[in-house]
């Protein structure tokens, strides 16, 4: 705690504070206490504002879920068709163009692109709000205007983070498609004279998409954890920024709470991915 630095705080009250938070006990005892409370889902109270950690996390979770859910959705809507198209036109100019385009998104520093977009769409054109989740006058708006207010605030963050995520899914779809189209049943489908589109989109895509289910499961922690760099730029009131703020203020109970919840979600995500995969692909038995 930073109170040691403050000359106006007497040693007595520092000792009292330490006792209140249990910081006077040896580290192993503190750890045992913490694990004990964890078993009861008690993450303690924040050092910053004395609010229960679980309430702080519950406050921030919807914003992150909204933002990362929408960008994940956007990524799938755009990346899968791009990947299939790339595979259909393997090694052609179109394939290379899509490769470079998705890699540009993957390589561009998100915070820099965000800065440029905020400057262009927000400051110069004045079309979109540049940060936060609501306008200053949000509470005074009607229900419909409130909805549009959220939408306007979501456009830049969703598209910029989706642009960054296109590459991995579209490359994944592309390489899986390339593997699948060499299977015998695809040759059979072609041989019996089915149109090229239906061979690709009906026969091949379904099998090429199987491994993508795993990615959805694995994306769960990121979906809920958010990115602290991204959320800080857009002043998005989500989990990533909560992590950043609590780290900067050495708010240990909140930090530990986020870490534990993050780890739990990763495990749950892995389990969901495994189960889904077995459910979709009859060749796999759990």
């Amino acid at each position: 705690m930073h109170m040691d630095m403050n000359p106006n705080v007497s040693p007595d009250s520092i000792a009292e504070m330490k006792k209140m938070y249990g910081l006077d006990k040896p580290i192993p005892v503190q750890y045992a206490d913490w694990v004990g409370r964890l078993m009861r889902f008690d993450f303690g109270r924040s050092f910053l504002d004395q609010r229960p950690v679980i309430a702080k996390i519950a406050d921030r979770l919807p914003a992150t879920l909204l933002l990362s859910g929408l960008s994940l959705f956007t990524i799938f809507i755009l990346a899968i068709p791009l990947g299939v198209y790339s595979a259909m036109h393997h090694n052609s100019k179109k394939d290379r163009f899509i490769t470079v385009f998705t890699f540009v998104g993957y390589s561009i520093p998100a915070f820099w692109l965000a800065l440029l977009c905020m400057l262009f769409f927000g400051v110069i054109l004045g079309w979109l709000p540049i940060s936060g989740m609501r306008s200053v006058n949000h509470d005074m708006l009607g229900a419909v205007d409130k909805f549009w207010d959220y939408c306007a605030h979501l456009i830049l963050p969703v598209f910029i983070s989706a642009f960054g995520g296109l590459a991995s899914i579209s490359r994944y779809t592309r390489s899986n498609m390339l593997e699948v189209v060499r299977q015998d049943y695809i040759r059979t489908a072609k041989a019996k004279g089915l149109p090229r589109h239906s061979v690709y989109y009906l026969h091949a895509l379904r099998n090429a998409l199987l491994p993508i289910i795993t990615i959805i499961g694995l994306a769960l922690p990121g979906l809920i954890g958010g990115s602290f760099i991204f959320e800080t730029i857009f002043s998005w009131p989500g989990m990533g920024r909560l992590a950043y703020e609590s780290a900067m203020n050495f708010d240990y109970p909140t930090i530990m709470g986020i870490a534990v919840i993050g780890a739990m979600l990763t495990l749950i995500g892995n389990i969901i991915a495994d189960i889904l995969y077995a459910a979709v692909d009859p060749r796999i038995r759990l």
Partner: protein
Amino acid sequence: MIGAGIVIVLILLSLTAPVLSPYDPQAQDLSLRLQPPSASHWLGTDEYGRDVLSRMLYGGRISLSVGFVAVGISLLIGIMLGAIAGYFGGWVDQLIMRTVDVVLCIPTLFLILMLIVFLGPNLFNIMVIIGLTSWTELSRLVRAEFLSLRQRDYIQAARALGVPDFIIIFKHILPNALAPVFISATFGIAGAILLESGLSFLGLGVQPPTPSWGNILTTGKDYITQAWWLTLSPGISIFLTVLGYNLLGDGLRDVLDPRLSGGEEHA
């Protein structure tokens, strides 16, 4: 290979930074604050009148070394643990792979954020922390390669001849397992450079006055309406570098991974 071209040019530029830089990257000249690009200062000057081109060249050295050192550390750990787990199998394998599972449970970005805040942001810490948090994928890759390679006849033969395990691992198996490791390392360098610049953007990266692309960009954002050149050159440099490494990794994958070559025969 556009990627390889970009990567080679960047490495050459940062190696020759002391020769190429027209000015001392730290020399301040307050009479020349925030000058736009001109013949004497090709990329303009910053808020202390320092030459942006010189700072970019020196910053490139920092950014690239973050990429190389961080990936070097993760290669070292990842290859060692992956090789041991895959070669020996049994309880050693179980121990190492369950450790990997535990490390993978903690969100990486979050872990890096915590470690940097607690240990302090400086070049050394950043390189080591990024390296120490990114070896898990590599160790899984190496383990998988070792698992399949150790069953081959030539390895069995080497064992039968009594070649020590150490030599089998490093001389007989490792060279054959390196292709996917190289690909992953190339992407890793790109990721580390991007991560350093992102951390710098939050003030958690390499600290001024040492120039890194991330912190030049960060100071530049405060002057973005008066001095666009301060954010444009580092932004483009980070972007091109990361793009170069990513395209190189992708190209390597197409060349080295036989499953992806060929594909559909064009009718």
